[in-house]
């Protein structure tokens, strides 16, 4: 069976990753990243209209009435109760340090009702988040990821002590961070608003990516025992290649599910699911890439460096 020589080409793979992250970073500096109301705080009002409305006009009207910056956009969703019927929603995001008061919200609804063809008794949604709570949601999500990472490092260090557990654990977490950075890059590049969906997507992929890494490390652990005469490089390469079929098959089944979800969501105009499945697909690919091309080669580099440091002492 033809083997991929991942270790020999590792610099190429590192470069590709780095390039994506750097592009993301440049876009981040230029565009910034737009936090969703869920994190930035503010008020979101959604009102059902009969047919599409001019969102620019709505934006101007509400903005001049409130004196606050407003983003308006129209969204379409298929009606789950009646086939081939479309629900049009006008979405107004008012991000500010203070959420709108009840009077201000009434005013916004009145302005929209007077100027546009609002559906009587139609859907209405409202989200109002104090900035403190929004920040806290974001921070608690990040804190959870951080603490989970520390515990995983501890567990992997213990379980993989045969292959220098700490090296395995830390390189596994570096691979995770790498994939999170790549997924995050998508947001400034495509100007997607970063909300709770991003956190869910990151968490999902952490599960998968870590799983991938551990399967390969498990092989390295086993092969270190079985291939005593081989070099570390050979062991790592063999291990990656032995688990490659499994990696491909698992990825294929997962991608099938995700792509199905994405297609269904796009066809039915369910924006929340599109926002969930798209970063998942991208992140998933980045996650597999992290595992195969980043985690194990990094582990090898770590081990080699450690070996080099040790040699002079012995002499």
């Amino acid at each position: 069976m033809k083997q991929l020589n991942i270790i020999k080409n590792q610099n190429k793979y590192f470069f590709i990753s780095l390039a994506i992250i750097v592009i993301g970073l440049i876009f981040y500096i230029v565009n910034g990243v737009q936090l969703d109301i869920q994190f930035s705080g503010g008020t979101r009002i959604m009102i059902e209209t009969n047919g599409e409305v001019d969102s620019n006009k709505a934006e101007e009207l509400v903005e001049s009435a409130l004196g606050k910056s407003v983003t308006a956009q129209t969204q379409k969703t298929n009606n789950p109760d009646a086939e081939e019927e479309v629900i049009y929603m006008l979405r107004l995001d008012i991000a500010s340090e203070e959420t709108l008061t009840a009077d201000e919200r009434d005013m916004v609804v009145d302005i929209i009702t007077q100027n546009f063809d609002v559906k009587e008794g139609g859907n209405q949604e409202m989200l109002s988040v104090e900035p403190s709570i929004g920040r806290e949601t974001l921070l608690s999500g990040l804190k959870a990821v951080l603490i989970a990472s520390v515990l995983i490092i501890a567990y992997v260090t213990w379980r993989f002590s045969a292959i220098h557990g700490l090296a395995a654990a830390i390189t596994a977490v570096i691979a995770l961070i790498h994939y999170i950075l790549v997924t995050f890059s998508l947001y400034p590049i495509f100007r997607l608003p970063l909300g709770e969906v991003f956190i869910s997507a990151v968490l999902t992929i952490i599960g998968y990516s870590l799983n991938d890494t551990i399967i390969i490390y498990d092989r390295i652990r086993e092969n270190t025992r079985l291939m005593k005469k081989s070099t570390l490089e050979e062991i790592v390469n063999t291990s990656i290649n032995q688990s490659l079929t499994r990696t491909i098959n698992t990825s294929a089944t997962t991608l099938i599910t995700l792509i199905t979800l994405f297609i269904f969501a796009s066809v039915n105009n369910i924006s929340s699911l599109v926002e969930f499945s798209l970063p998942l697909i991208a992140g998933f690919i980045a996650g597999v890439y992290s595992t195969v091309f980043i985690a194990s080669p990094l582990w090898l580099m770590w081990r080699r460096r450690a070996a080099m440091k040790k040699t002079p002492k012995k002499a």
Partner: protein
Amino acid sequence: MRNYSILKLVAVIVVIAVCAFLAYNEVKNNNIRTGIDIRGGVYAILEPDIGKTSLSAEEIDKGLESAKTILGKRLDAKNIFDRSINIDSVNDRIIIEIPWAAGETNFNPQDQLNELGKTALLTFQEVDTDKVDENGNYLPTGRIVLQGNQVKDANPAPYEEKGGWVVVLELDQSGVESFAEATGRLIGKPIAIFMDDHFISAPIVSQKIDGGNAIITGQADASEAAELAATIRSGALPFRLVATKVDSISPQLGAGAMNVAVKAGIIGFFLICLFMLLVYRLPGLIASIGLFGLAVLTILSVAWTKISVTLPGIGGIILALGMGVDANCVIYERIKEELREGKTLRAAIDQGFHRAFTAVVDSNVTTLITAVVLYALGSGPIKGFAMTLGIGVAISFITAVTATKLMLQGVTGISAFKNKWLYGVK
């Protein structure tokens, strides 16, 4: 021995079939609770507005507990029984979820908000006689004489001395003391009563009151007095609650997302089965049965534990299904390797499971660690995700490892299924 093997296979399939039947019933009878993001409703985070008063952690905990009871009573009074009110004791706040009632036609979030916002903290305050609003009513000063939580009971009563109606308040011990002190000090001056910041009345203190009862005069008639008494009784919140997050979701849009996610899930499931069948042949079929078992067991545990399924929760289920498939891929690749080395079918299966076991355990344990941490530390949507993920991973360990192993061992006991081609080798 052979009969015993077949028995294993049949037993596992029967168990899965029974579970599938039970799960089908739960789904048919709508026993799956769905979160606010799917069924629509109002989700709100309420935080105590402690302001300048200093309360100990214990007092806050006690206060949140009674606020929870009071909110519950208020919703009972509105015939809203299907709700959840939870105290987040880490962050000192109350999380309340009220789904739209069936047949609800008024989806104006504003109305629901107003209902939630009515927290009615009753205070008796010293006031500055020169500080009044445009209607001539006193403004709250924050110099609190008596609070709603010091009121044990409130009842309407006819005002015998001057006619008309009053509300009689029965005070607790601390209330008696502070009221006696204040009325002794403020003779001839008004003490104003506020419901939140809303002015109610300002009786002038005529004498020191140390009997344990206080009255609120100025009630127009019996029904007004009764109404005020009821508000005080159910409204004696220890502190004001401020809504720091309110999310009001239309039921139609949430249901739409749910429908699509479920449809995609079913199609995705069949595509995975097809893939597994093509790649792994007979074991692929068994993995599909195991995966089906995972799906029905997840539905059952969600129905029986009454967990609310949210959209991120569905994400967790999908991830757990993926982990289940993955465990099978890892094991089957191992079995293939063993077969290629020329081992017998039975030995290859035993070895395959044995050697893949550490990998599957480690990957499941790390995922469980993630799920537990996220559940403990995450907020609303993240908790929902962590909950279903944790349950799913625990179940997937049973279905993808134990159940498929039993079934595979059973199948190899049948002579017609001994051809290695069926196991994906040559």
